[in-house]
């Protein structure tokens, strides 16, 4: 089980990882600053394996893949949003950061959550509730299950819709 960190709507990629940190291949540097402009206490509050729960349009703005990479490197186990900005959503799945679009839920800060990616099922143990994620098209589900687009393309050599 993992603890939920709940934030609002329209969290942009500039706040997930500011542009001043993005020009690097050192992923630990990204993780060190992730979410600091959303929540200055994020680093002290967050424990490896916890998840982020956001509202509408998480990851809007820049196409920087450093945003999902920073979250993944910081050991965020899952990001839930009502819906994601399109580039962030693709990027997250392409680099192997688990993401689910859950339109209806009542998750609050600190709730204990478990989830099943393939079934798109999210269990809120604190509130004894189960939520269903918007189903992914098979191509996205396959990329996610392979752990990202790099292992997917190495295996399949092409896109299978």
């Amino acid at each position: 089980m993992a603890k939920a960190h709940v934030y609002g709507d329209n969290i942009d990629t500039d706040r997930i990882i500011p542009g001043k940190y993005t020009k690097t291949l050192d992923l630990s540097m990204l993780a060190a600053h992730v979410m600091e402009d959303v929540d200055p206490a994020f680093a002290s509050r967050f424990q490896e394996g916890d998840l982020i729960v956001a509202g509408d349009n998480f990851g809007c703005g820049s196409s920087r893949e450093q945003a999902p990479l920073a979250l993944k490197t910081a050991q965020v186990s899952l990001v839930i949003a009502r819906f994601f900005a399109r580039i962030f959503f693709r990027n997250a799945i392409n680099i192997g950061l688990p993401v689910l679009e859950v339109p209806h839920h009542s998750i609050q800060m600190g709730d204990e959550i478990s989830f099943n990616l393939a079934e798109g099922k999210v269990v809120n143990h604190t509130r004894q509730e189960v939520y269903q994620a918007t189903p992914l098209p098979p191509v996205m589900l396959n990329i996610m299950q392979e752990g990202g687009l790099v292992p997917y393309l190495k295996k399949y050599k092409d896109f299978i819709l």
Partner: protein
Amino acid sequence: MLPQTIAEKILSKHVGKPVYAGELCVVPVDGAMATDTTGPLAIKAFREMGGERLANPERFHLIIDHAAPAPNERIANLHRMMRSFAEETGCHFYDIGSGICHQVMVDHHRVNPGEVFMGADSHTPTYGAVNALACGVGSTDLAAVMLTGKIWLKVPSSIRVNLHGHHLREGVSAKDIVLEVVKHITISGANYQSVEYHGELLHYLSLSDRMVLCNMVAEMGAKTGIVSPEGLQLPFNFEPVFADKEAVYTRVLDIEAETIHPRLAIPHSPDNIHDVSAYAGTPITYGFIGTCTNGRLQDLQSAAAILKNKKIPSGVRLVIAPASRQVLLDAMKDGTLQILIEAGASIINSGCGPCVGTHDGVPGDGEVVISAANRNFKGRMGNPRSDIYLASPATVAASVLYGRITVPNQSN
């Protein structure tokens, strides 16, 4: 065949059968591009995929614009990596000073009407100005394009924006129009969709104006933005792609261009749109003109028209980054640059400049910036303790002249 939007037509031609909004398809990509923010990760992913040769080196472009010249050794080494990759693979390479990726792609005709283009930068839809379908993607998607020459995507549904009227009010430019569109559509209202521009006003819009309209569809969450080709002038013959009359749109937005006043996006979101007049008098210390939205010759000229024979007062600074080397040369030749420099502006290297918060003019704590860029997210320019207002180049120029937000008009 059912009637089609411009996006549906372009994608149908590429996949070789009629496709419509909502269908998934694997699309051959005509051209692709990455910058120094996204390129190094794309190169890394390309290698990890087992990539050795690019699918189409003639149509792949690497460009150093986001932090150019390199402000530190970490970034200098990423630039080195890009230079050697370009040499090894034979792709096109544009070094520091060439300009902002999107301006360079259009200046050099690297994207053409009816084409599909993938750029590892969210403002890639800018090329809809030349009637192309262009999308922003991340580094790993781009690596797959580099390797296979293809991308999978969902055919977008389209929002139709009709721009009515034959002229704009004094002091109003394409930036004010697009801010008005962002206000109606909001920051997520075009997620996964194409924003298609139509209307009589198109006959009066320059290529630069069209680029502004498509550039900020990124601030609506759109997959792409495309301007219908009426009035599009390019220095070569091309086959324009029009929408069918009965094409289906998820939404139609009608805008009477002549009713639009100068607009402003207030902190901290580009869809937080108000009239400049409502915030007139707000003190500012820093103005910025540049970026893929508003760093073109006509933008510099509109600032120069306001700043001619004037001095920016002490305590206020104006930073200008021409969008490309060509823009810089043109502004030098016609005297625009001299006017701006004499007024007290600082001209910086052609590139993204302070827009991405890495170098070239980071605001201090508590400072208020008026910027001709496209994003005013908290921390965007490198300091989360500063405020950014977005406006047209004319509004920025008028505002730096008085040290407060000012409506641009003849009395400036």
